[in-house]
Structures are given as structure tokens and as C-alpha cells.
């Protein structure tokens, strides 16, 4: 079992009203000096069996087809820390 993480972010040129709202709240809470906030999504996929190159390629396909919309979003795929069964960090 392996954990694969897919991070999805709006492309830099796409307006992120949610991130803007979060950024706008920061000075009200007394936090200064944060010039921008972008909000994204993180998916943690528990992959059964050995994580082969083919399985990783499948995860990329999942990310491209369903988890992200390539028109407005970019994604990155990386191995997650720890294991789904709770072992590891």
C-alpha cells in the first residue's frame, strides 16, 4: 500500500476569489505581510499493492481526467509520507 498525493492549484492567471477572501481576513486577525494567498486542493490516494511506474501513470491519468480541470488548474503528483496502514511518519 502506498500513499500518492495529488495537489491541484488554479493556474496562476486564474483569479482565486477564495484565496483573496482568506488574504483579506489576515490583517483583521493581526497578521501582516502576507501579500497573496492561493487556495488549492490536496487529494491523498491509497494505492493497493506495489507502486509501479504503471500505477503512477494511472494516478496521473486520474489527476488529469477527474481531479483537475486542465483549462483552469495545474496538478502535481508526489509520494506521500507514511503509509495508509498507519506505519511510517
Amino acid at each position, binding site marked *: 500500500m502506498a500513499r500518492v498525493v495529488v495537489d491541484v492549484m488554479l493556474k496562476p492567471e486564474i483569479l482565486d476569489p477564495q484565496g483573496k477572501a482568506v488574504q483579506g481576513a489576515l490583517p483583521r486577525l493581526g497578521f501582516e505581510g502576507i501579500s497573496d494567498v492561493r487556495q488549492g486542493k490536496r487529494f491523498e490516494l491509497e494505492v493497493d499493492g506495489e507502486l509501479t511506474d504503471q500505477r503512477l501513470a494511472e494516478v496521473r491519468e486520474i489527476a488529469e481526467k477527474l481531479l483537475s480541470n486542465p*483549462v483552469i488548474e495545474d496538478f502535481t503528483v508526489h509520494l506521500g509520507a507514511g503509509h495508509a496502514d498507519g506505519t511510517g511518519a
Partner: protein
Amino acid sequence: MKVGVVTFPGSLDDVDARRAVVLAGHEAVALWHGDHDLRGVDAVILPGGFSYGDYLRCGAISRFSPVMTEVVAAAERGMPVLGICNGFQVLCESHLLPGALIRNNHQKFVCRDQRLRVENNKTAWTSSYDEGAEITVVLKNGEGSYVADEATLDLLEGEGRVVVRYLDVNPNGSLRDIAGISNERGNVVGLMPHPEHAVEDLCGPGTDGLGFFASLLAPVG
């Protein structure tokens, strides 16, 4: 004509869409998201609402429902398909239309009577309007800001595929005030405003929306 209206889990405006279809003189056929069958309809409407709870992205999960396989195939054969609001989002996620709908730039849900200009009356869904007709229909959305890259926007404008444009106010930050677009062939149209809520004088801002449904009978071009 037999006009199918798809109900997804979370669709809200399927009943209003069927009502508009009947008022325009057609037979309305209820279609279910889990069906692999379009029941012999001549056209399909994807209604407004919050299909699959807007989980992941609006329309992203609906796109993979069994009925959408049939809708996409029929659309590619030339069947008229209209996506309203959430239906527009489904059409974009299905790649039947270019671009995407993102959260309103002002972060709030908007609900208003919206003036629009019909820029293209040569589509299957707008042929009963005069070119340049100014109409008022209901607009209600939280994620209705139309975005696409500059090249796509230029292509849409150049080919006359901006079907309706916002007048007076841009209610959600849509690029170039775009309220609705069509595919190249003009049989697939998606728009954010709700013509099905403007088909009777009793409620809503009038009957300006009826033309979308009446257009199915009118000769195109």
C-alpha cells in the same frame, strides 16, 4: 419535438425546464442521470442546480454519469443540447464547450433579473430571436464566471460563438461579458442565466426566455 431534460442528483431546475419545454409547444421527457438511454428524444436540456453537490468542481462528476455518454455522442451527431447554469458547467467539463466556469469574482452568490443581448441567433436554441435582441431573464449563480484563454476567447468571438452577452452589469466577472456560448456547429449552447425561469407573466421578469425553447421549431439560419 420530444425534448429530454436530464435530472442529476442535486438538479433543481429540471421541473421548470420541462415546464418551459411544454409551454413552447414540445413534449417534455424526463431523463435520469443513471440511464444509458435518451428515450428517442430530439433534443436535450441539462438543467440548473447543484448536481452531485458541486463536489470536486461544478459539473465534474456529472460529466461521467451514464446519460452523459449518450448526450455527448448525440451532440457530436448534431442533436440540439442546451446547458443552463449547472448544465453549462457540465458541458464545459464534458469538453462539448470550451472554457470553464469559476467562482464569481465578488465571492457572493448572485440572484437578479439580468439583461442580455442575443449576439448569435443562428444556433439551434436562439433562432427565434432577432439578432441583437435585448432580453431579461433570471440569473442565479455562485460559480458563473466564464474563463478561457485569450486565444479561445478570440476564436469564440471570431466565429460568432458568443451567443449571449451580459448587458448593463457583469454579474460574476465573466471575461468579455460572456453569458453563453455555442460549439462550432451551433447545436450545443451553454449559458449561465436561466431562460426557463422567464416563460410566464405570473412570475419572473417576463417571457423573454421562452424563445430558447421555441427556437427548436424555428428554421436555423
